[in-house]
């Protein structure tokens, strides 16, 4: 754990208005730490998608961002319903979001594909009825 800065946020699952705030904070911190705009964008978009997913699909959770010199690791943990079929959920366009979420601008089924696209490594662990942990790494 040498030279690691840890950022940690509790994501409120009850409040859609605040969804995305943690990602905004991470973006600001990474900018202060002097990372390149491209690295910052990758991290913040991937985390933002994951943060929104935790709010709309999993009643919130906890986000941890470990910043190393050569990589940034984002861990998103929730105790939501879990993802029964991960390969299906990863497909572009697949979404279980209800109409009220769609009317807020989410539910295109592009979040998980975006998270994969913007990160160098992504791992999903999920147990139905227990929750989901997503670990993403962006190399600097």
């Amino acid at each position, binding site marked *: 754990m040498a030279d690691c800065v840890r950022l940690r946020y509790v994501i409120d699952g009850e409040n*859609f*208005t*605040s*969804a*995305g*705030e943690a*990602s*905004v904070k991470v*973006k600001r911190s990474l900018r202060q730490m002097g990372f390149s*705009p491209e690295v910052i*964008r990758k991290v*913040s*978009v991937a985390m*933002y*998608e994951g943060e*929104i997913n935790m709010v709309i699909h999993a009643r919130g959770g906890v986000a941890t961002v470990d910043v190393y010199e050569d990589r940034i690791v984002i861990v998103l943990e929730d105790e939501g319903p879990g993802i029964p079929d991960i390969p299906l959920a990863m497909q572009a366009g697949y979404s279980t979001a209800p109409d009220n979420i769609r009317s*807020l*601008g*989410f*539910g*295109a*089924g*592009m*979040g998980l*594909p*975006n998270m994969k*696209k913007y990160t160098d490594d992504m791992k999903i662990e999920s147990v139905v009825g227990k929750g989901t942990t997503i670990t993403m790494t962006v190399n600097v």
Partner: protein
Amino acid sequence: MKISEIASLLNAEVLCGNGELDREVKSACGCDMMSDVLAFVKEQAVLITGLCNPQVVRTAQMMDMVCIVFVRGKRPPKEVVELAEKADIVVLATNERMYVACGMLYQSGLSGGGVVNG
């Protein structure tokens, strides 16, 4: 294209960022699905949307977009404009509909920018 040109082409009201209308915009994305916006990487882009919630601003912020245009005469709530102001994003509001607003900007030389699955 300068943001000021976008504002005049769309006869738009400037809701915040009046001092930054000289900023240059190079591409645009017209979209109501935020993850579609997030799939799109381009520098100095403008987001044209009919949605008015805080996530629109945060989405634009994540993508380093410089301007948001709200179409169809929608006026976002005050908190949403304040969020944009804090994020250094210019906010415009036009009565034009999405299709027309995008068409006008495209015709005037503002391109769509990159390919989504690039």
